[in-house]
């Protein structure tokens, strides 16, 4: 028998490292970049943010000659430039849910919490890595979308605005901030629900189902509730003008950020208390 010869030797560690928040951040970055769904979701989010404005700009330009004055007056170049944000938010939100729920569905969470048994550093790191990545992917996308849609409209000499016009820069960059915060909000829902289908359903319910339902309520109720829903509050970040019942861009953005903080706090409490 070659028992002795085949006996494995464990190479000793020359240095024993301890857990730090920075190391957990690096670990979560490795996790995010090493699964295919991250790359696909981010790529889809990036492309949709650009493709929709380009498409809408081209369609608007080609129909401009047939439009009545009233219809022309209703077109706004910033609505076109940021049309993709409404679509790409779903791709980023789904990724936000998956970043945490995929660990539960595959069982990876047991390895993660064995390596970092205090657990909370993992939640902070996941949130930070995902927020930064989401923002850094979406910001160039909205800038490209603005420039590209304006270039198409410029060839027909219509609907021109400048990045330096009041509120334009804030709206364009606000679009990227909105997508980032929406992704973080979805991540906290994923951390609370711990199930991919349930997390996506809960997010879609809050973002896409509840707002139109509010229209059924008496308008005094609707006006009192709707501005404070996460999607409506956050939307003010990339709206050039605000409705009479809407929050200001700063207040709306802060409220959405507040929902994210609330979600994180609930997720953190549950994460520490629940069995894995």
């Amino acid at each position, binding site marked *: 028998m070659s*028992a002795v010869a*085949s*006996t*494995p*030797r*464990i*190479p*000793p*560690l020359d240095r*024993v*490292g*301890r*857990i*730090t928040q920075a*190391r*957990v951040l*690096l*670990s*979560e970055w*490795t*996790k995010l970049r*090493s*699964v*295919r*769904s991250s790359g696909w979701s981010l790529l889809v989010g990036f492309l949709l943010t650009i493709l929709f404005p380009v498409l809408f700009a081209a369609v608007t330009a080609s129909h401009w000659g047939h439009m009545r004055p009233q219809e022309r007056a209703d077109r706004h170049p910033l609505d076109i430039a940021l049309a993709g944000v409404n679509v790409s938010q779903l791709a980023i939100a789904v990724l936000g849910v998956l970043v945490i729920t*995929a*660990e539960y569905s*595959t*069982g*990876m*969470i*047991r*390895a*993660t*919490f*064995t*390596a*970092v*048994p*205090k657990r909370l550093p993992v939640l902070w790191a996941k949130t930070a890595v995902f927020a930064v990545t989401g923002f850094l992917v979406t910001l160039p996308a909205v800038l490209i979308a603005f420039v590209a849609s304006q270039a198409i409209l410029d060839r027909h000499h219509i609907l021109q605005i400048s990045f330096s016009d009041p509120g334009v820069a804030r709206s364009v960059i606000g679009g990227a901030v909105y997508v980032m915060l929406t992704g973080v909000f979805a991540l906290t829902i994923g951390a609370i629900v711990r199930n991919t289908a349930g997390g996506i359903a809960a997010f879609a319910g809050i973002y896409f189902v509840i707002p139109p339902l509010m229209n059924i309520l008496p308008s005094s109720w609707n006006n009192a509730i709707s501005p404070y829903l996460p999607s409506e509050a956050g939307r003010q970040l990339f709206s050039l003008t605000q409705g009479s019942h809407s929050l200001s861009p700063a207040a709306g953005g802060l409220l959405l950020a507040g929902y994210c903080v609330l979600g994180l706090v609930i997720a953190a409490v549950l994460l520490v208390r629940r*069995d*894995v």
Partner: protein
Amino acid sequence: MIEARGLTKDYGDKRAVDGLSFKVEPGIVTGFLGPNGSGKSTTMRLILGLDAPTAGDVTVNGRHYRDHRAPLHEVGALLEARSVHTGRSAYHHLLALAQTHGLPKRRVHELIDLVGLHDVAGKRAGQFSLGMGQRLGIATALIGDPKTLLLDEPVNGLDPEGIHWIRNLLKALAAEGRAVFVSSHLMSEMALTADHLIVIGRGRMIADTSVEDFVGRASEQVVLVRSPELERLREALAGPEVTFTAADRGAFEIRGLTAEQIGEAAAAKGIALHELSPQQASLEEAFMSLTRDELEFAAEVPT
């Protein structure tokens, strides 16, 4: 070194682990034995702090697992349930875990080579066979050079070569002075690897003992005797507690007497013996006889 004191875990109104107290000492392989569903995996999760105990306490190397600053250096764990993201490569899986403790990429490559996964390290873990998955789990457990190892059913699904490899690994790890705690529902496996046994059934402690004591305690003494003068021997040994069973040609299995008593009685009568050997009950038989009550009870209770 693992110390559990009155460790108890309820899931709803079902008690999965019931007042377990035990120690897992360094330098030996401690087998954790019990039928499927007896609470072994739950105990492992309690040790790692993945689940919180309902009552009682468990520490690893003197502290709760979660209070260690470098937990992967204290305990390496291979859990029975798969704990790998199926869409991530073995390399990136190990790298992400290594990075939490600031371990270098070189360490990841060392472990991949050690468990023989270098050819498939870039492949997604979801495409791994059971055996490859177990090897990745072993690499995960060893990455932090841990003082204590916790392995839940490590030979499950392995081919004979893999089982042989795990056995040698466990013995080598214990010989290096590490505490090795390995669960199995296969008694034969424990007989080959374990020095000490902790046996549970339905969450309760059945035995905490050495392998030899466990077999001895659970089995009656049987001695195989071979002699050309079997009939004379039988007359010499006859007694109320003594039974004789014909074994193969020219041999008896004798119950109720020790080998020493038989040898001395034969010598006194001048009877030649060609063989006198105490028979070890198999660990499997010992386990079955000790856990029979627990199993019958289990079968009657609807779950």
